[in-house]
């Protein structure tokens, strides 16, 4: 950050306070968001029950739909954009994603390897006391 930069504090807008848009535009935004969210939800329920697609792909499809759902919420309801007035929000999101990735990824990895240094149960049973 160079010394000339203005305090971008003034330009940065918290989620929710957007004075620039008219009420109509904002309502429209929420309606579109709601529509997309409902569509994605309905699709998830449909996919879960159908046998039109290859069965093992169902969990993957559900994960994809869930992530899309999060995207819709972030954009339409929490108003995360890529505009310059959104640096803090985007950075916060990135930090959150990083932490979630580290914790969830790490957990999956750790839990899958927990028994590597453990003898199988039947061997423990036969150990001399």
């Amino acid at each position: 950050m160079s010394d000339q930069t203005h305090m971008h504090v003034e330009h940065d807008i918290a989620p929710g306070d957007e004075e620039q848009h008219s009420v109509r535009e904002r309502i429209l935004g929420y309606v579109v968001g709601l529509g997309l969210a409902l569509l994605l939800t309905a699709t998830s329920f449909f996919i879960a029950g159908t046998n039109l697609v290859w069965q093992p792909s169902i969990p993957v499809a559900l994960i994809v739909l869930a992530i899309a759902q999060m995207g819709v919420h972030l954009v339409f309801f929490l108003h995360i954009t890529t505009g310059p007035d959104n640096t803090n929000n985007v950075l916060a999101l990135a930090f959150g994603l990083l932490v979630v990735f580290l914790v969830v990824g790490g957990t999956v990895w750790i839990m899958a390897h927990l028994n590597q240094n453990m003898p199988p149960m039947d061997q423990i049973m036969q150990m001399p006391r």
Partner: protein
Amino acid sequence: MPAVPTVEATMLGKLDWSAIPLDQPIPLAAGGVVLLVILGVLAWVVVKGHLPYLWHEWITSVDHKRIGVMYILLASVMLLRGGSDAIMMRIQQAIAYQSQGYLPPEHYNQIFSAHGTIMIFFVAMPFVIGLMNLVVPLQLGVRDVAFPTLNSVGFWLTATGALLVNLSLVIGEFARTGWLAFPPLSELSYSPGVGVDYYAWSLQISGVGTLVAGINLVTTVLKLRTKGMNYLRMPMFCWTTLASNLLIVAAFPILTATLAMLLLDRYLGFHFFTNEAGGNVMMFMNLIWAWGHPEVYILVLPAFGVYSEVVSTFSSKPLFGYRSMVLATMAICIISFMVWLHHFFTMGAGPDVNAIFGIASMIIAVPTGVKIYNWLFTMYGGRIRFATPMLWSVGFMVTFIIGGLTGVLVAVPPADFMLHNSMFLVAHFHNVIIGGVLFAAFAGFEYWFPKAFGFRLDERWGKVGFWFTFVGFWVTFMPLYIAGMLGMTRRMQHYDVAEWRPWMLVAAFGMLLLTIGVLAQVTQIVVSIRNREALRDRTGDPWDGRSLEWATSSPPPVFNFAFDPDVRGEDAYWALKHHAKQQQLEDHSGPEYQDIEMPKNSPTGFVCAFFATVMGFALIWHIWWMVILGGVGAFATFVVFAWRDHDEYVIPAAEVERIDRINIEERRNLVSLAGTL
């Protein structure tokens, strides 16, 4: 269990007279003393007519400085409680060689569990959060934190947690599971009493408070900086505050979720962590440490910030390597989320997993090392003044290096297989937490006390306190390293190995020195309050400081600054001061004074916490009607708060001017005095 609940069971849940431990004199006496002290203070307050003052100026205050002071007060009181636990444990281990000592096992277990819980959650956490609250808005040059009322809610919820833990002394019992309540021991089948419930509910409630404080402080640093205070001009303490509170926001929800699962197991027969029905205790280990390791950095990062401020001020030099310091802080912030498995190397994971997490843990020592060198280079060539805060800082550097090194040692998996859960580990974490966090708390306390109250602390007693604590620390904890290497495990109520005995005796002697240190610090406060007129600081800048908190009077007015300070570089106040000296503070024709709007006081926090206390207590004792009452009450409080119309009041420009003129006058005297020297 009767099929149809009796009237008593409906009214009082599990609570009856057997909950009062009449057969155990020690906790009852301790609880009784605490109760007497509280009642005594309350009675004194009411009789002297201080109650309205207390209510209007402190309990309902949303001023970040007042809230900061209350956090620190809570931490200090709890330090005495946790310290008493420590004294009892050291005495027990000193005499329990081939004997049962004086504490029966079930009692000893409660003491070490309460000690750890209290020291981490109700001493270290409130102390650092208190310092951040007190100082950060001042350093940023702003009038308040981002969410003043939320701030008060956060404090009072923390106090609720502390109250519940202490209540367990007289009503019921505390957990016997250690400070992290590992299952399956903490499950209903092995801990059927209310101990674990006391533990879990106090942490759930105070955890919400901590999360709220974290959100508040992150927002404050990101959104509320004065003109020209861009990120790379913020004092180091603000940076470490940002990093620490980002960690709070990211990590505390993990703790809440984990404890919630444990509570579901205990209350509703779930099987997240039980031995049977598909539960997995290792998931608890995994989750609790995914919070637990970031937690230690939540504590130590603000501590690093305090040292940065103190070392630079008392060396009369800018902080060496400011940018590398920022980078190191943020690096620690991220890496601290990549090492948690090092707390359970020995629990089954294979070489790949252990090696990766071991290496990641050792890497954290690199940015920490960078910081140590930066402090040393800041001191190098400076005109160092060894006032009490500086003593704590130098003491920290010497002590913390050993703690860091033993940390790296236990981060080597093969070494950890020998040292895990031994007294060596106990020595390691006390070495970093006392030598790092507690020393910083004391340094910050001595350093910012004049800012908060307008008079300095007595230097002589402060130094006595430092030396006894410093030497006492080494005498208490170095023997524990040795005992650990001789094979002594942690949390032993008694033992039969002769080689350990001498070290336990030395450690007990060290504890005596530590106790004297604490008493010296209490004396210091009493003596200083008595001599406050002689110790009065009229300048607002007793240490020749460098950052903006010293630019206003001590104690600062509610609005902190009459004008938004204009920041042109690092060490904002230092630059201002030298600029002003050149101009002899001639022109103060500056801008016109303006009305200032400040947030109104609000009892929301206190009332919320009252209902949270009721609800927590009821949950612990299964008194369901009271749970509902507490929940409805807390929610109603929130609704009332959300619907209020006027949340700000105006301080008229004339009043601002009057207050500010006094401050300017004092300062002008200071500058002209400096001119004559």
